[in-house]
Each structure stands twice: as structure tokens, then as C-alpha cells.
């Protein structure tokens, strides 16, 4: 437990030594993993064609970087993922708020949504192609269905967790609906909502592979599929890492926003 006095706090902020330590800490597990991979792949315990050595992964990376493929795939997927994710999150948030506040709405839609939620994205593809064609619409909708549910469930949980006492206060003081929503329900549900947003983002990324099975010509999901086809496991791994990193960055951004919005908790 660190001393929490003014001086110490300021000093540690300035030189940010803890920041450095944190950074080192952050690095330990990734470095261990990389080391394991290096060891396993270079000792050829596993066939390099499935577990390519780091050098091969690196050269696949630089190659795809320099020939612009990486950028192209990334931009193409990011655009779809972001559209779907934003759509899915907004829908999930709206539905979650409605279902959290009005038990009737929840009772009405719960059974169907809880059933739909289980269905794998791949199974939707035929119907999506039928209803929305083979363009981006189908892909975006697939991502939407993926990111919708984590946001929904976490929002409902957050909303229903808002203390009854605060709502009684709001009722008595005739707080406007808008304020009840924006300044009581939302702040109270926020930390749970952000978990939903983070899970939704990763589900969005995971659905991109299924989505880009529908007539894509670029994209990280497309590339993984094709690289698997062509048995270029180094490319597969480059793209796995890429998805991991980009997803990780998105996650970091969401967490940063959460920290900012929830700053009253630590104030």
C-alpha cells in the first residue's frame, strides 16, 4: 500500500518510475510467450510449416507491409468492423437500456434474443446473402449480430444494478426522463457497459473471419482464410498477431475512455 500523501504522489507522477516498472511488467508475459515460440520453433520439436520460426514470421510481416497488402486488408476490415461494431454497440446499448429499465420490454424480447444469441455467425451466412446480398451490408450485419449481445447483456445488468434508492430520489424530485437516463441510469451502469463494449469489440473482430467468407477481396479475415488455403502459416500468424494488436489497441482505447468517464470513482 503506497503512501498517499501529496508529496509522494506528485513526485511519483513526475518521474513516473512506476510507469517504467509497469511497462516492464506488461512486457514480461508477451516476451515469455515469444521466447517459448522461438524455442519451440527453432528446436524444431514441432514442424516449422505449422509453427514457423520467428524470422519467417517477421519476413512475412515485412513483405506484406511493404507490398501494401497489410494496409489494404486492415483498412478494408477496419471499416467493416467499425461500422458493425458501432452499429451493434448502439443497438445493444439502446435495447439494453430499454430492457433494463422496462421489465416488460425485457420479458417480451428476452426469450427470442437469448435464443438468437447462441446461433453461430457462420450459420447466418446463407440467410444474410439472401436478404442483404454479398456486399458489405451482409458483412456489417454479421458483425452487428456479434457485438450486439455482449453489450446488451452487460447493459441490462448495469442498468438493473443501479441502486433503487437513487431512482426513488429521481421519482420524488421529478427528475426529467432524459436526466434519469443520462445522469442516473447511464453513470450507474457504465462500468458494466464498458465490459460489454470491450467484449463486443472482440466478438466483432472474431466475426470478421466468418464475414469475409462472403465474397471479399481483401481484409484480415479474408487473408487468414486464403493464407490457410495456401498453407502460409507464417502469414496466418502475422494476421493473428495483427488482429490481436489492433483489437488490443481498440480495447485500450475503450478502456481509456472508461477510465476517463469513470474518473469520479478514483477522484
Amino acid at each position, binding site marked *: 500500500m503506497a503512501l498517499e500523501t501529496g508529496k509522494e504522489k506528485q513526485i511519483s507522477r513526475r518521474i513516473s518510475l512506476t510507469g517504467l516498472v509497469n511497462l516492464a511488467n506488461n512486457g514480461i508475459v508477451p516476451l515469455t510467450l515469444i521466447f517459448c515460440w522461438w524455442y519451440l520453433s527453432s528446436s524444431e520439436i514441432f514442424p516449422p510449416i505449422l509453427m514457423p520460426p520467428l524470422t519467417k514470421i517477421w519476413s512475412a510481416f515485412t513483405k506484406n507491409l511493404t507490398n501494401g497488402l497489410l494496409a489494404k486488408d486492415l483498412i478494408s476490415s477496419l471499416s467493416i468492423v467499425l461500422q458493425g461494431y458501432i452499429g451493434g454497440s448502439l443497438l445493444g446499448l439502446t435495447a439494453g437500456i430499454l430492457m433494463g429499465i422496462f421489465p416488460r420490454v425485457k420479458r417480451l424480447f428476452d426469450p427470442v434474443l437469448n435464443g438468437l444469441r447462441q446461433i453461430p455467425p457462420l450459420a447466418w451466412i446463407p440467410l444474410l446473402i439472401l436478404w442483404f446480398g454479398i456486399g458489405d451490408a451482409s458483412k456489417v450485419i454479421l458483425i452487428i449480430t456479434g457485438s450486439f449481445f455482449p453489450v446488451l447483456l452487460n447493459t441490462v445488468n448495469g442498468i438493473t444494478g443501479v441502486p433503487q*434508492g*437513487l431512482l*426513488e*430520489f*429521481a*421519482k*420524488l*424530485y*421529478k*427528475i*426529467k426522463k432524459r*436526466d434519469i437516463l443520462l*445522469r*442516473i441510469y447511464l*453513470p*450507474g451502469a457504465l462500468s458494466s457497459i464498458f465490459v460489454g463494449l470491450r467484449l463486443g469489440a472482440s466478438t466483432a473482430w472474431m466475426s470478421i473471419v466468418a464475414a469475409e467468407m462472403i465474397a471479399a477481396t481483401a481484409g484480415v479475415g479474408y487473408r487468414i482464410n486464403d493464407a490457410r488455403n495456401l498453407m502460409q502459416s507464417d502469414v496466418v500468424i502475422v494476421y493473428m498477431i495483427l488482429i490481436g494488436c489492433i483489437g488490443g489497441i481498440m480495447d485500450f482505447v475503450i478502456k481509456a475512455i472508461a477510465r476517463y468517464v469513470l474518473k*469520479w*470513482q478514483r*477522484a
Partner: protein
Amino acid sequence: MGFDLHINALSKSFWVGSESIPVLDNITLDIKEGEFVSIVGHSGCGKSTLLKIIAGLVEYSAGTVLCGGQDLRESDVHRGMIFQDHRLLPWLTVAENIGFGLYGLAEQEKQGRIREHIELVGLKGFEKAYPHQLSGGMAQRTAIARAFVHKPDILLLDEPFGALDALTRIQMQDEVLKIWEQQKTTMILVTHDIDEAIYLGDRVVINTNRPASIKKIFTVDLARPRERTGHYFSLLKAQIMQEFFDSKKRDPEYYL
């Protein structure tokens, strides 16, 4: 418009586990507009429940509660309440909490009123503090300010000064009186401090133990400002104390 309160044969019970616990039993009480009524009673007898029913926050099972002749649940009279637990919004600062729900004012006027009320409860300098950064008494004072700032027609005070030191408490009592006199607010105060009940109330209602029914009502025939050490005051206090401490004998199963 008039909004006298008429509570008639009000009863209420709660479920705890599979047992039904009667909390209010046949309460009949009329409170005139602009009156100041103090309510005292033992811990757990049902005082907060009564206030919450008047606030329209808790349903009741038998009896009627009329406000200005209208069923209370439909009544639109502007009520305010200082809750026993302060119920501040944890994510709003002191100033934001106090100003929350203050509609229909120009921003400047609103800020002015907030500032004024922060000063009133002695929280200057803590405008930007969040509730978890406040002491118990400071949180309570914030809640008091929040209730005052709305200028309700009926103000329900549930042990509003319980966490305050003697001095702050006296100051706050005088502020309440001032507001009551200026704004003709109907005030219903639940308190454990018999002194306070007499000092503030036009009448002091003494409840029985759970289920609460009205045991006795004392009328405080003293002009304000009242002298806490005056003769009549002390006499009344002694009577109320008598009535209060007596209940032990009548209800032996209730440990007191």
C-alpha cells in the same frame, strides 16, 4: 391551492422471509398546509416508512392518504425529502448533486442558488468533491442543501441532522425554521432528538412501537423563536420523555 394532508386509517406491512410484518397500523393524522409536525418513535417502528408513503415512494395496503383532497398517488404537489441514507449520486460533485433536477432556471440563477445553499450548509470549498470524499456529516449536509434548493411545498425530513455535531445541528435547525417561515413549506420531521422535535414542531407526534400507531400528539404552544431552556419547554420535554420511556412496560417483548 391547498394541500392539507389527510392520512386516514393507514396500514402497511412488509414481507421478511415468509413472515408478514405489520409496520404501520391504523394511522390517522391530519396535517395542515404550512404546519410543522415532528414525529418521534423508537427505532424500527415505521417512521421512515410513513414518510416514504407520504412521498409516494412506498405503496400502502389499507387506508387513504389524501393531499389537497386528492389521492396522494395522483397528487402532483411538489414534495421533497431528506432521506435517512443521504442518496447522493456518487458520480456527481457536491455542487452537481445540489443542482441536479433544478429545472426552469437560467444558468446563472441556478448557479447562484447552488452557491447560496452550499454556503448555507457550510460546504464552501467542497463544491467539486465527490460524495465518497465527504465525511458522514458533510454528505448529510449536502442532502439537506439538495432538499432546500428545490423549495418544495411539502418537505419530509428523515433524521436530517443525525450525523451533525451539536453546533452545526442548531445552525441547521434555525435554517430550517427560517425556510419554513419564509416559504410556508409544510414540514414533517422525523427525529430522535426530543429537544429538536419540540424546538421545531407545531405538534409532536409520538408513535408506538412497531406496528406504529399514534400514541399521543402534543401541541407545542410556544411562540418562536423558542427558548430551549424555558420552563414550558422543559415541562413538555419531560412529558414527552415520560410518554416515550414508558412504552417499555406496555410492550415487554420488544427489548428496550
